[in-house]
């Protein structure tokens, strides 16, 4: 099992649970959350390397959660999942500091490649922070 710490966030419980199971088959363990508040609690408790975050959620939207992550947990990388056939939300997310974005439905191998890049970037951010201290 890889040492990556991943958090999947989407209000569709069946989507995140199935995706977590598919990742586990590929040696990647992932926690899941179904709303923004739960996601922020899990980020505080577990400090994941990467958060895979749906943009369109009731309550705190994905972009709201992204803003909170960028200010409070700068070493955590965010991959956004956008729902519509437009890249507009993804581009807006990148402007706010997301690492990358994917349009649903996702290709799992493409997601894993983006997670791998984001984990490497998270490690670099963490070591950079350590150097500053």
């Amino acid at each position, binding site marked *: 099992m890889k040492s990556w710490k991943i958090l999947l966030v989407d209000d*569709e419980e*069946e*989507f995140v649970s*199935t*995706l977590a*199971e*598919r990742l586990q*088959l590929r040696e990647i363990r992932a926690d899941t959350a179904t709303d923004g508040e739960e996601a922020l609690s899990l980020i505080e408790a577990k400090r994941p390397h990467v958060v895979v975050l749906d943009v*369109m959620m009731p309550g705190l939207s994905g972009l709201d959660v992204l803003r909170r992550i960028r200010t409070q947990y700068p070493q955590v990388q965010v991959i956004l999942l956008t*729902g*519509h*056939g*437009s890249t507009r939300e993804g581009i807006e997310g990148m402007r706010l500091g997301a690492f990358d974005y994917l349009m*649903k*439905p996702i290709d*799992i191998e493409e997601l894993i490649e983006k997670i791998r890049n984001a984990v490497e970037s998270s490690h670099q951010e963490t070591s950079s922070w350590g150097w500053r201290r």
Partner: protein
Amino acid sequence: MGMEKIDLEAKEVAFFSKITAGITHEIKNVLVIVKESSGSMEDFLSLCQAGSFPYLDKISSPLCTIRGQVLRGVELGGLLNQFAHSPDKTVASRNLNELVEQLYFFPSTLQNLRV
């Protein structure tokens, strides 16, 4: 046409557009879950060793069909979603490729409808 009637029609269009956009979003969520679920089944089938499961091909083929039809549904829903959002702004910048795709898609789809 009086201004009041134009205003009422604009509100009607906005209402139907909002409902259509919302429902296409939900349909897409359904399709995404179907795709992940069929993908999960494909993952487990791939773990079966050759010859250990006699119906491997019989199940793999419909799973492949499900994947293809999901993508077809997502494409159709995406175009309908964009169409539903088109009255959101009276003036807007548009991607020319997407616009041409819609101009081609809707007449050809209407022509093929079996109603």
